[in-house]
């Protein structure tokens, strides 16, 4: 786990300011999707050794949800992005 996270809004801050809110990769299915898709979204999570994307909520800072890309083995952080900006970018693509 990283000691410091560089929030795109607040700068480099200690990890205690954040709450980790789970995997960021799963996308909320649409209402019409099959049961299996919803089941996987709500209940099934990977436990990767290596690269992972997580939501970190800057609860004691800007209150933004950030996507932190990090390595669960080496604890290296590769990037921190505002989640909304990422979702908007995905939608645009």
């Amino acid at each position, binding site marked *: *786990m*990283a*000691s*410091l996270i560089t929030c795109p809004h607040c700068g480099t801050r*200690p990890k205690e300011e954040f*709450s980790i*809110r789970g995997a*960021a990769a799963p996308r*909320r*299915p*649409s*209402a019409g*999707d099959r*049961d299996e898709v*919803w089941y996987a*979204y*709500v*209940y099934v999570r990977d436990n990767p050794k290596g690269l992972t994307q997580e*939501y970190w*909520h800057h*609860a004691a800072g800007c*209150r*933004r*949800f950030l996507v932190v890309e990090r390595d669960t083995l080496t*604890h290296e*952080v590769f990037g921190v992005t*505002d*989640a*909304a*900006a990422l*979702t*908007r970018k995905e*939608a645009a693509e």
Partner: protein
Amino acid sequence: MTSYRLDRGGAINRAQALTFTFDGRSYKGFQGDTLASALLANDQMLMGRSFKYHRPRGPVTAGSAEPNALMTIGSGPRAEPNARATMVELHQGLVASSQNRWPSLRYDIGAVNSLLSPFLGAGFYYKTFMWPAAFWEKIYEPLIRRAAGLGKLVLEADPDRYEKAWAHCDLLVVGAGPAGLMAALVAGRAGLRVILADESLSAGGSLLSENVSVGGMRAADFARTLAEELASLPNVTLMARTTVFGWYDDMVFGAVERVQKHVASPSPELPVERLWRIAAKRAILATGAEERPLVFGGNDRPGVMTATAARSYLNRYGVAIGGKVAIFTNGGSGYRTAADLTACGVEVTAVIDARPQSIDVAPAGIRVIRNAGVIGTKGRHRIEGLLLDRSGFEEVVGCDALAMSGGWSPIVHLMCQRGEKPVWSEEKQSFLAPDVGPAFTPVGSAAGLQTVSDCLRDGAARAMAMSAALGFAAHAAEIPDVEGEYDAAFAPVWYVPGAKDKAFVDFQNDVAVADLGIAQREGFRHIEHTKRYTTAGMATDQGKLGNVNTSGIVAAMRGVSPAEIGTTTFRPFYTPVSFGALAGVARGEHAAPSRISPLHGWAKKNGASFVEAGLWYRSAWFARDGEKTWRESVDREVATVRAHAGLCDVSTLGKIEIFGAGAAEFLDRVYCNGFLRLPVGKARYGLMLREDGIVFDDGTTSRLGDNHYVMTTTTAYAAEVMSHLELCAQTFWPELDVRFVSVSDQWAQMSLAGPKARLIMSRVVQDDLSDAAFPFLAARAVTLRGGLKARLFRISFSGELAYELAVPAGYGEAVADAIMEAGREDGVCAYGVEALNVLRIEKGFVTHNELDGRTTADDVGLGRMMAMQKPDFIGKRLSTRFGLTAADRLQMVGLKPVEPHKEIHAGAHLLKDQAKPSLANDQGYVSSACFSPTLGSFIALAMLKSGRERIGERIVVWDALRGAEVPVDVCSPVFVDPETVKLHL
């Protein structure tokens, strides 16, 4: 006289004598002494009893790795157990006491354990105390715990202050020995922001203890000169008495600074300890090397210590460890010790060298015995002689102290705390630091170097490279000449065979070589298993002295290289850190602050008793004269609300302001019921689900403007709902234009309920409150008669005509007072959360007692709220799956005892009439229960299997905790005013 203070020498201030006590006896020392050096100066070698066998022990080191000389420092609430006497700075009036002995340090009954030692070897507690099983908890474990151990914890509150701080730097240098000082100087001169941290009170490290001259000065003077220049550089911070104990991700280091541990009476203006987190761009490990003890029979006898310790006491503190010192060595350190002692006039009886030959030369006239080993020691409370063996020839050598040197182990802990293991070097016969990348590198003897000049050179060179890497131009520092150096090379000796007594490898946990053998024989061969089976390396010193010997001996036992055995895992903390420092200021109310409602003062003067709800203090009931029990007050409050009116503090509810053109659509998606068509000026009850279809939270949301809403949440879920809304808005639907702000603390909110609520509220509010002008569920800004702007909501949690009035927090108490005054003649009363609870149970309204994370909207009778025609809302999809819609789910019902005065408690389970209590027969449980003064009966809400179709059935409430079985009739959960006439008055 065996150990004594020399007439001259040492870095102590002989002009400043200090008095202190040890086990009640008074002693004298000097400023600059440690507790250990001062005791040795007073010929007090015996400083502790060992953990398991209660063997007498003296100091083995003069520093941080000390396993034996553990003491309790101070008295009363300030008493600190397990302090290392070798690290405790002496101060006037210091009070020290020995540990783990009874009745006294000299005569310790527990030493009988030594006789039992055949039964107390590795794993003894797994084998000896096997049966009967019940004896373990009641007899064996308490006995062992009393017999074994360290210092005793103080149970009084710590009176001292602690704090935490962050520091940032370009370069952190850990350790201010020759390499660290030089590195800090080169980097500091180049302009880097440097932090130089050292455990000791003054910089210098080994320079303070070594008898060499550097740049024409005594080593200690050279160290002081360097420290003075460093102190003059504005970009360099010297942190004395600071132990860097951990290396964490992103180059963050943990350190503890002992700000006032060395003073007689700490100033309340300062913390006694400060916990630092240091964020460094680069770091240099200049922690030096630890001298290894030799492992031979009786090597724990008081008076046996490392050669470095002997030199340190001699050169730094002016103390001779004995009058006749023997030396047992496998390298140059032993010879240097002999030379230093001789130079100070201390008799050296023999230098025993384990090697067959060496280039080292002892001072003239001193007997050197090569190719020999010590196999036993004599004496009780201190060594009186030793038994050596040379090819089967045994000889007794008289001595009153023994300095031993088993070679060097670089102190690499910090660099191994993030997963990398130390690397065995065949050349150096040591474990060296792993390569952890360019940001953190070892220098000097921490990197396996041995001479002072090598350390100075290495420190300068590494700092140059680090400075360049960070873009600073560093100039090569002139490396001063060092005179009087010695060659510290050694040939490893892991174990001296033929031991006549226990040969200890871990002094603090009483682990002997034989124990390591047992572990190998019994299959605990992996070094981590060996550690846990024997407890080697597990005590407060975490094996700083013993671990490398453990690995070396296990390797030798197995006939392999130490590289194959490796070491156990290094973890923070390098040395023990007090809980006080870790807690910092987060103690008592600073750890769990009290949340006080803006109406707290109003509640208090109206006689409230308070109940803790999370961090909140909520008014529970308002006792009046003559009321003897809380029930009497609550019954009166409920009756008053139903007949007249009552005022209740509801400020603790979560309040969230919601703005934006997308707010309506957003609310429509987070609530399961519809919010798109909520008109401006109206409130609506809303139910939020989790994505799995279970109810999350409930509350009312009011539309104050086209794009402006205010949401209320339950008290407990205020923070969770806020985070949930942010998650939804930012990650699911960032296209919606919506913003939130929590205003829970900004508004005082009070509920005025009862048939006379309008009458009373109209005396406070200017606006027309007639049913036509301000109907049920109206919600809008109003003006109070004094001109204050407020928000009024006609919502009810009691079933009565009711208003919730919200005013800016600071006006809360005055407005509540005004309402009480306005309603005095009409009999208004203050009511608390207990009455609020009774009122809502009588009406069948749910709280988190019912919405307990297992119930669906339908389970609690709110299924029809779910607007399934909406394209989507959180929880919609999974709320329809089979498990959540099954007919035999628990559904909310009311319960009335057949005999009205039979009490029911929440948590009790439900059984069919005549059914035996069993899991299979379980029909559900009571979620909320109270006495209803309105009905004159106990009533309850309960979750009952297929409950709604069982109205009228007689069942049993089974309460095993209280041994009660109460027959009850299942009824509608709405006990009062089922037609909701009263709401619309």
